[in-house]
C-alpha cells in the first residue's frame, strides 16, 4: 500500500540523507519526494510517498523520530489531507492540433507556459489524480518530456486524527 508521509526536518546538512537512508536500508523505494521550506525558518518539510506495508511503515516512522534532525513525522491519510502536485509536460503539437490541446487546459486548470514550432509546454497543478488523468489524456498526442514535482500535502484542519505514533508513545 502507498503511504504519504510528511516529515518536518531541521534544515541541516545531511538531514535529508538520514531520512532517505532509513527507507533504502529496508529496500523500500521512495516513489516521490518533495522538499521545501516551511513557515518556520530553518525547518524544511519533506513529503514522501512510499509503497510498503503498515507494520514496517510504523517501524520506519519510529526510527525517523529517533533522528536528531527530525522534528515531526506525520502520515497524511487519504481524505484527511490536502495534496497537490505540479507537472510540466512538453507535448508534440503541430499547428493543426494546437486548438484541440488548448481546449483541455480549461477543463484541467492547466496552463500553456511555452510554445515551440511543433510543441507546447503545459503546466498543471492539482490533486495528484488529476495530474495523472491529464497525463493520460495528452499521452496519445506524444509526450516529449515530462517532470512531476512530487506531491506535497497538509493535514486538513477540518479533520483531526490522532497519529498512530502518539498511541504507541503514550
Amino acid at each position, binding site marked *: 500500500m502507498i503511504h504519504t508521509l510528511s516529515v518536518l526536518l531541521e534544515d541541516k*546538512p545531511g538531514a535529508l540523507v538520514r531520512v532517505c537512508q532509513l527507507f533504502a536500508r529496508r529496500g523500500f523505494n521512495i516513489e516521490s519526494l518533495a522538499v521545501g521550506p516551511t513557515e518556520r525558518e530553518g525547518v524544511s518539510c519533506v513529503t514522501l510517498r512510499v509503497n510498503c506495508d503498515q507494520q514496517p511503515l510504523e*517501524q520506519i516512522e*519510529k*526510527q525517523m523520530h*529517533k533522528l536528531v534532525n527530525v522534528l515531526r513525522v506525520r502520515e497524511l491519510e487519504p481524505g484527511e489531507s490536502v495534496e497537490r502536485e505540479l507537472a510540466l509536460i512538453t507535448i508534440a503539437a503541430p499547428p493543426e492540433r494546437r486548438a484541440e490541446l488548448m481546449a483541455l487546459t480549461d477543463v484541467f486548470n492547466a496552463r500553456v507556459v511555452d510554445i515551440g514550432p511543433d510543441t507546447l509546454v503545459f503546466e498543471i497543478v492539482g490533486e495528484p489524480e488529476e495530474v495523472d488523468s491529464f497525463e493520460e489524456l495528452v499521452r496519445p498526442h506524444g509526450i516529449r518530456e515530462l517532470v512531476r514535482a512530487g506531491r506535497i500535502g497538509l493535514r486538513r484542519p477540518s479533520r483531526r486524527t490522532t497519529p498512530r*505514533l502518539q498511541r*504507541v*508513545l503514550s
Partner: protein
Amino acid sequence: MTGADAVLRSLEAEGVEVVFGLPGGAILPIYDALARGSTLRHVLARHEQGAGHMAEGYARASGSVGVAFATSGPGATNLVTPIADAWMDSTPLVCVTGQVRSHLIGTDAFQECDIVGLTTPIVKHSWLVQDVEEIPHVLKAAFHVARTGRCGPVLVDIPRDLQEAELDFRYPDEVDLPGWRPPTRGHPRQIAEAARRIADAERPVLYVGGGTLNADACAELLELAEAGRLPVVTTLMAKSAFPETHELHFGWPGMHGPKWSNLAMNTCDLLVAVGARFDDRVTGKLAAFAPGASVVHLDIDAAEISKLRRADVPVVGPLKQVLGDLAAQLRALSPSDTGPWLRQLEAWRDEFPLRYGDGGPLKPQRVLETLSDLTAGRDDVIWTTGVGQHQMWAMQYLRCDVPRTFITSGGLGTMGYGIPAAIGAKAARPEATVVCVDGDGCFQMTGQELATAVLEDLPIVTVVVNNGYLGMVQQWQTMFFEERHSHVHLTHAVPDYAAIARAYGGESWTVSEEDELEAALAEALACGRTAVVDARVDPLEQCFPMIPAGAAALDMVEYEAPAEDEQQGQTLGSVPQVTAR
C-alpha cells in the same frame, strides 16, 4: 584559543578522564594540544579499531561515555567496526576524527574519506564541523545524544583548519536539539497495567537485556524480581545485570543458552522484556517463540516496541524509573504465588544441566569452570570476551554477581573485541582484575594491543581458549555442512601465544593438560602484570546446547555422550548432524 584546545576543554568540561586514540596528519593539532597540557589521560592504541573497542570497554565498565580519537581516512575507517559494534550493543561512544582541511573536502585529498557518510547508518548522529565556533556546541550535543535515550555512538568530524582556527571558548550550559526528545518517564497507566499483568501471571519470566545495564537499573530489577518472586533470565548483553548466584536467576536464553533457560522463556505465560530486543539469537524461529506468552515490553526506545514480537503492554521510558515504579506497584498488588513455577524451573535445571565430555584432551569448558572457581565470591573481577565458542562457554560457566563485570560484543559479534575492551575496562577500573577470555582466532585480530596494555600500565590477563580453529565456524561446518572443514584450521602452535606475550613484555603460560591448568590460571590472575595463558584445548569440542539458526528454540541440539565403545575415539563421533536450513 584554538579549535583543538576547544576540543580538549570541552571533553574536560564533560568530565572525560580517559581517551583512546592514535594520531595522524589530520588530527595533529588536537594531539599537539594534548602535548601542551590537559587533565585527560590519552591511551595510545596500536590500531584505531583497538582504540574504539577500548573506548567501548571503558564505557561498559564505567557507565560513562567512551571517547576515541582517530585521524582522517584510514584512521577513521578503522573506527567503523567499533562504531558499528557500539551501535548494535547501544554503547555510549563519542568518536572524534580529524578531517582534511575544509577547502580540500570533496577533492580526493590525501587521506580524505567521507566518514560522516560512511557511518550514517550506524551512529545516533554525526557532525561535520563547519565553523570553529561550533566546536563546543557540537561536543556538548554529542555527549548529550550519546548518553540520553537509548545509548549509542556519535561521531564528530573536525577539519584540520578548524582545529587550528581561533575562537572565544565558552562551554554551553544547554544543548539546542529541538528534534531530540527521548522519553523521560514511563506512562503511569501502562506501568499499572504491566504490574497487574505480572501480579496475575502464573508463569512469569523477566527477560532481561543489556538496556538494563545501560539504564543503571540493576538495583530496581532486583527489587522487582524479589517483589514478585519472578524468575530472571539474562541475555548475553545483560550478563551481570542480575546476581547469577541469586536463587531467582535462571540462566541465559538463546542459541547456546542452557535448556532450562530456554524452557523458561518458551513455556512462560508472561514474558516481561526489560531493555531487550527479541534478537534472533535469543528467539530462534520467531513464529515459534514463547507461543503461550503475552508480552510486557519495557524499553527506552519506542522503535523496539512490537518491532519483532507484538507487545501486549508496552511501556516506553527510562528503565530505572519504570522498574522502580513497577516494583512498588507490584508489592501493593499481592502477586500470585510463583512457587510452583520456580520449582518447575529448578527441576528443569537439575534435569538438563550443561554437560560435556570427559577424558581426552583438555576441555575448553574446564578452562572456564576453573576460572569461575578461582574467582568465586570476588566482586572485583571484570570479564571481557572475543566472539565465538569461547564466548558462549564464558556465558555458560562464568558467574557474575556485580553489574558491568561481563563485557562482550553481542549484536555485531566482533571478533577481536576482547583484548582492547579489557584494556578499556582496566582504564576505567584500575583496581579490578580484568580478564579477557579470548579465542585463538580473536587474539590474532587485535593481539597487538598487548603493547598498549604493557606500556600504558593497564595490565590485563588474557586466557586464550586455543582450539586451533575458528571454532564456531568449524562447529557450523561440522553440524550443517557435513563436517567439511573449509579454511578454519589455525593450528594450536602457530603463533606461539606465550612467545608473543613475552615479546610484548608480558608474562605467559602454556598449558595443555588439566593438571597444569589451575596453577597457571591462578598465577596469571595473581601476577598483576599483563599475562597470557595459552590453554590448548580439544580442537573439535562443540558448544552445546545449540539452537540451529532459524529453528524453534526448543528444537535445540543437545550434547550426547558418546557410546561406551567410542569413548576413546574423537569427539566428532558424538556430534549430531543437522540438516542445513
